[in-house]
């Protein structure tokens, strides 16, 4: 950590937000495991085809019970590629039956894997909202982040989703894109880059979508290794800290969600999960010890990586926060 960067908690103190506390639980985010058909350069999960961590059925049962008893309105399913979990479809069906809105994060190329052909129809049948990764509207940037050939496969998958109604106006089937920079710089302003994506994808590929979420690359795990290799780690941290935005900090996603790891441990966000920074400050840190009151107002566990969510327009699983 370079000496020139202000500790994150001091930045919070400077705008009266310390200690940062949750303000309810509107979203339950579940990381079903670290197995993925891709191994992207920026992946904070360090997911890949050889990872074996996978959520057990007991944890999944507990999450369904909580969706019912706590009336948490939104379930956000992520991974890895969550579709590779053997109980994925059954779990989605049970989650929808609780009445929760279910969104699933998809890398698009998973639709080319064996046994995944009918996933779009399955999602449509259960009105699951799809959030897909597409780092940029050009092949060069997308393949640089996610691997050679990924852009072409992603375009094909997006066309398939459009064909059955996802991302098509009036269908009620939600298809949102996630864009993240192809390197060590902040994402473009969300509305402006959404307009570029919309125009370019429509013009070049006939693809439509609902919204685009702009995400900042988090300087942890695989992306941190990349920054260190390129000797840009310190400069990137300074860029993030220098762009600290109190307005973005006020609305960080950890204040309204909780993240469940594959092994049932609880985290303030998926990034803390990958850093193994469990929920703390007196709140229970495993799903078996769930306590709504203690968790809903818990103090958030912070670190220098939190500048990734508070820089510029802010960044969250739902895009900008200010």
């Amino acid at each position, binding site marked *: 950590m370079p000496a020139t960067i202000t500790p994150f908690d001091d930045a919070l103190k400077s705008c009266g937000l310390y200690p940062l506390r949750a303000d309810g639980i509107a979203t339950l985010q579940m990381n079903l495991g670290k197995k993925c058909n891709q191994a992207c350069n920026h992946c904070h999960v360090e997911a890949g085809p050889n990872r074996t961590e996978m959520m057990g059925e007991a944890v999944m049962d507990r999450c369904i019970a909580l969706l019912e008893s706590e009336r948490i309105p939104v379930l956000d399913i992520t991974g890895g590629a969550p579709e590779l979990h053997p109980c994925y479809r059954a779990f989605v069906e049970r989650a929808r039956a609780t009445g929760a809105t279910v969104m699933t994060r998809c890398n698009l190329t998973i639709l080319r894997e064996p046994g995944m052909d009918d996933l779009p129809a399955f999602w449509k049948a259960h009105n699951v909202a799809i959030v897909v990764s597409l780092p*940029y509207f*050009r092949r*060069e*940037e997308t393949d640089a982040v996610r691997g050679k050939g990924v852009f072409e496969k992603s375009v094909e998958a997006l066309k398939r989703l459009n064909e059955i109604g996802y991302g098509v106006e009036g269908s009620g089937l939600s298809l949102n894109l996630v864009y993240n*920079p192809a*390197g060590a*710089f*902040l*994402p*473009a*302003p969300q509305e*402006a*880059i959404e307009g*570029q994506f919309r125009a370019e994808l429509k013009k070049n590929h006939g693809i439509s979508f609902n919204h685009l979420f702009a995400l900042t690359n988090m300087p942890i795990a695989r992306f941190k290794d990349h920054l260190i290799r390129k000797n840009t780690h310190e400069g990137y941290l300074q860029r993030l800290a220098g762009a600290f935005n109190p307005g973005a900090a006020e609305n960080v996603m950890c204040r309204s969600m909780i993240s469940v790891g594959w092994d049932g441990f609880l985290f303030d966000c998926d990034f803390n999960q990958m850093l193994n920074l469990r929920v703390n400050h007196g709140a229970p840190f495993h799903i078996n010890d769930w306590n709504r009151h203690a968790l809903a107002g818990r103090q958030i566990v912070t670190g220098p990586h939190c500048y990734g969510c508070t820089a510029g327009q802010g960044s969250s699983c739902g895009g900008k926060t200010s």
Partner: protein
Amino acid sequence: METYYNPADLGKFGDMGKDAPELWNAFMQWYGKVFAEGELTAREKSLIALAVAHAVQCPYCIDAYTKDCLEKGSNTGQMTEAIHVAAAIRGGASMVHGVQMRNAAEKLSF
């Protein structure tokens, strides 16, 4: 090796306000307005700035506006085309001054 251009000096840009704060503040206020969204988008203005940075060959500006263009959502294809525009105007400016050469040569010749 010591050089006249040090990347760390870009961070000292604000030092230019030390002995002439009013002028500096006026400059920065004007500078900010220049690059705000207007008839041109902030992204388009950043591409122009990148092209001009190459025309005036300012390494600080090239560094700053490369990053700014990327953070405005431009890609390297668009940025490279912008630099070609700068290069074409520089080259064209040299070429069109050839008319001066031809005028001068004509005056001196039979």
